[in-house]
């Protein structure tokens, strides 16, 4: 695992709740709001299971700690998107809270329904970008959520030991988290 320079993190006293909201204007039309909210909620829940942070969706985009939206091309943050595939999304280190998906991608929440050959799994990318929002940089471990690439029609949503160790070094462990359960899951996956 790796961190951004200076190891920035959300520094409020734990346990703490970080709020997130979706941009009402910068969205996509072919997925429902409920579908998008459901997969992003699952992505936040995975991280919350391993650290003593909670995440709560709110309506007020302006006051949310984490601001999520779908943007196309040059959208004013100095990191323009590049159209279909290439760069899929990006997020900024703590405590910026910006999490942007490239609106040009064909985002999928269910590959059984979405048939596009270039469809990208929204939940996988959301899980990865939340890692950045929390302070993790890219990992060299290919199986880790924080590895930088993801192929179309691939799904990778489970945190690996590398991800968990990295984020727990920043925030500590969720008291309900069981490392042995994760290790058993990792072993089972590898087999």
């Amino acid at each position, binding site marked *: *695992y*790796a*961190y*951004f*320079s*200076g*190891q920035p993190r959300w520094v409020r006293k734990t346990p703490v709740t970080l709020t997130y909201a979706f941009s009402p204007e910068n969205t996509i039309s072919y997925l429902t709001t409920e579908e998008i909210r459901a997969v992003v909620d699952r992505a936040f829940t995975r991280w919350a299971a391993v650290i003593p942070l909670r995440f709560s969706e709110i309506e007020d985009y302006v006051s949310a700690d984490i601001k999520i939206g779908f943007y196309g091309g040059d959208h004013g943050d100095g*990191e323009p*998107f590049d159209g*279909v*595939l*290439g*760069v*899929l*999304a*990006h*997020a900024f280190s703590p405590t910026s809270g910006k999490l942007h998906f490239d609106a040009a991608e064909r985002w999928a929440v269910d590959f059984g329904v979405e048939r596009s*050959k*270039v469809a*990208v799994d929204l939940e996988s*990318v959301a899980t*990865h*970008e939340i890692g*950045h929002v929390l302070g993790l*940089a*890219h990992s*060299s*471990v*290919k199986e880790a959520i924080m*590895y*930088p*690439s*993801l*192929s*179309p*029609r691939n799904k990778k949503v489970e945190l690996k030991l590398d991800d968990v160790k*990295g984020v727990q*070094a920043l925030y500590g462990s969720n008291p309900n988290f069981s490392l042995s359960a994760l290790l058993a899951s990792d072993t089972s996956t590898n087999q």
Partner: protein
Amino acid sequence: RIAPGFTPPESITVLTVNGTNDTWHNLARFLDSSKGSHVSGMSELKKYFHRFGYLPVSDIDFTDTFDARFESAVIEYQSKLGLPVTGKLDSNTLSQIMSPRCGVRDTGHVTQFHATRR
């Protein structure tokens, strides 16, 4: 290499990567380039390496020559992403470059941690 006793099929299966054939076509010319190579368009590849933190800003005036600095960048890229470290633009490296990815830089702003065995 064809195994003994194996009859080649009459048809050939062509492996294509969905949605990235144009990119493959463009990148194929760089295959197995190494230090000293000069390939038209390599400056664009250098911009990719710069974009993700492997070439410093001072090298922004990129040329099409595979120079020593670019070799160092390729080695760092291969090392960072768990690829075989060859210093060349081999097929593993070009495949990785083609893969859709996160826009956050890999290096230049990060503190890397490595597990150590004691």
